[in-house]
């Protein structure tokens, strides 16, 4: 059967399932085979997907997380890494609040391509988009090809958040998504991210408390139709 990366199983839908105040759009970018889809799968399903097919265009995942007591729905766009899709995937960057830029610590070439990915991310998103650099496959220490220190330095030079993670063991996967969300939320709090900007990548949803709505939408009237 098909599986859907649902944040909550439908059985729990009865208990206030849609209570979140924000939606953040994320994109995951980086070379083919660095484990973008696996990171997403680990994050949404808490499982390692050993045999992952190439992504066509973009795939999606959602999960609701909590930052400073606020429920946030992450709408994650997992883009195809294949070079031939590059032109297509560029179309998807727009309106991202966060970007996970992933490389494989065991393959230096994927690290070397980061500047090109970063250029795209900077050019195609808004200036407030939070970019986090992820060195994936941290479990493969023996095959390491990129040191933690140099990646850390690259991140600092370019104003990126940075973490090494493993989609296989789950190490730091949660944090990667959360750190970016915290930073975005912080930007909202200190006013540097304008929620009304068209491409902020953040939607604010006034949550509907029990017993009354914040919006003054009148209840549907059971009135006649005047005919």
């Amino acid at each position, binding site marked *: *059967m*098909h599986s*859907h990366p*649902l944040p909550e199983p*439908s059985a729990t*839908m*009865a208990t*206030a*399932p*849609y*209570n979140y105040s924000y939606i953040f759009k994320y994109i995951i970018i980086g070379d083919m085979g660095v484990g973008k889809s696996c990171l997403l799968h680990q994050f949404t399903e808490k499982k390692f997907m050993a045999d992952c097919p190439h992504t*066509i*265009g*973009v795939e*999606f995942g*959602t999960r609701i997380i909590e930052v400073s007591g606020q429920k946030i729905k992450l*709408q994650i*766009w997992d883009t*195809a890494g*294949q070079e*031939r*899709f590059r*032109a*297509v995937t560029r*179309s*998807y960057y*727009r309106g991202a609040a966060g970007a996970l830029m992933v490389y494989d610590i065991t393959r230096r070439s994927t690290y070397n391509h980061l500047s090109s990915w970063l250029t795209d991310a900077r050019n195609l998103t808004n200036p407030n988009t939070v970019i986090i650099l992820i060195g994936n496959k941290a479990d493969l220490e023996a095959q390491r090809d990129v040191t933690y220190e140099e990646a850390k330095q690259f991140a600092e030079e370019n104003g990126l958040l940075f973490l090494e993670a493993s989609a296989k063991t789950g190490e730091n996967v949660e944090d990667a998504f959360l750190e970016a969300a915290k930073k975005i939320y912080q930007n909202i709090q200190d006013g540097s991210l304008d929620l009304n900007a068209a491409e902020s990548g953040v939607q604010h*949803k006034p*949550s*509907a408390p*029990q*017993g*009354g*709505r914040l*919006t003054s*939408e009148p209840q*549907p*009237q*059971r009135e006649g*139709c*005047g*005919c």
Partner: protein
Amino acid sequence: MSEKDSSENLKGETSYEDENEQKAEELGCTGSNAEREQEVEPVPMTRKRPEPKPPSQPAATEKPAAETLKVSDSPAVQTGWGYWGSWGKSLLSTASATVATVGQGISNVIEKAETTLGIPSPSEISSETRDATRGSENPGASSTDAVDDGSSFPIAGALGVLSTISTAVQSTGKSVISGGLDALEFIGKKTMDVIAEGDPGFKKTKGLMNRNSTLSQVLREAKEKEEQQTATEVTMATEKKAHYGLLFDEFQGLSHLEALEMLSRESESKVKSVLNALSGEELDTLKEEVEQLKEAFSLPEFFEEEEEEKKGDEEFTKEVTELFSELRISSKPDKLITVRKSAHEWIAQFNSSLPKEEKESEENQEVESRDGDHDAKRSVEDIHAFAIRSLAELTACSIEMFHKTAALFLHGQKQEVTATDRAKSLSQMTIVLCKELSTFSKEFTTCLTTAGVKEKADVLNPLITGVFLEASNSASYIQDAFQLLLPVLQISLIEARTELSQQ
């Protein structure tokens, strides 16, 4: 139960209010009691396709404008629309999916109901959509057009309106999928009232397109409205399980639609810049080719008669697989086929378990216990929930398939098939998908009528209407998504030409 029986059943139920009163009298209840009971009866959520419409404009002046738009495909009327130029023409074909949606029957019923209810008809709405798409170029255009039309269209008077619409729908030659939705015609205006009132997103969504929104935005906002509703009114079992909009989003239908829109928009602006850079003969040739491709996007008409009585279970799989292979892309419609198959199996299982259940419910009927009543009720609601879920999932998968197809068209590998051939296969695919949705709505409503023989009409009818409406909406979404592929294929076409000229 045969088709005829179920239709008749529906017909009988249109006057459910009278029936209820009668029942109430028989049971010795007072009329007011019966009324109150009806009030508290949870009205299952039925969602209407989100439709844009500025609330400020009176429907009366809008109506004739919509008329003209519909028929303006015919050359005679076109002259009056020189105003729109080629722009208007291209808009017409884009909007056609919205205008000529599934089920002439259904749209007629809706239009009738909407005329009386003062709700904008689908045709008006599409004219609004077009106005909105045009941006603020001609803010006063629609009212001017309305006046124009009044003079040039004497038939479009008060009485001619509906018949003109239906002929217009046919004469445009756009796809009119009338299969299986006839039954809705038997459902009375009362049900339509229920739909209009019970739809939380409806009032809100009416004005949305004014802000140049895309379909996915409109759907997203309608869904959010539903979310709010669900969050505040957690008491109704049906509502939680059967929210089409929420489910469609859960199955990532909205996301794929949004992604497809992004690809479509980007392609559209590329096409424009290519055309702008050309001139003279070169421009004319390309323009002509682009027009030809557009023609492949007018869905051919098809007739109910073409459908065999009982299509084999394998037929859909075979057809879709074949059409998909014609596209020559490195992807298969496996997910769609799986989803469709599991829904089909559910129905088959339901039907095979039927005789036993019927017997049981008869026994319950004799005892007339509250428990028995409750069980029966849950079962129709389960069917309804499953139907809505399946429709949402099938639609999401179809849109995902179109999105993936667009991505693969754009990735710039050498093309083995022409853009026009691909367009033809895709338009055929759209029809197969819409037919399938129509078949599903028929099957699900048959399940509902069978399981709900003992149900009150005001319980059963909204459920049945809901299934038909969502099936109709689903088909519209699929047709709209198909239209989004046009600029993508235009880019393919342009790229293929460039490749050719470089050789």
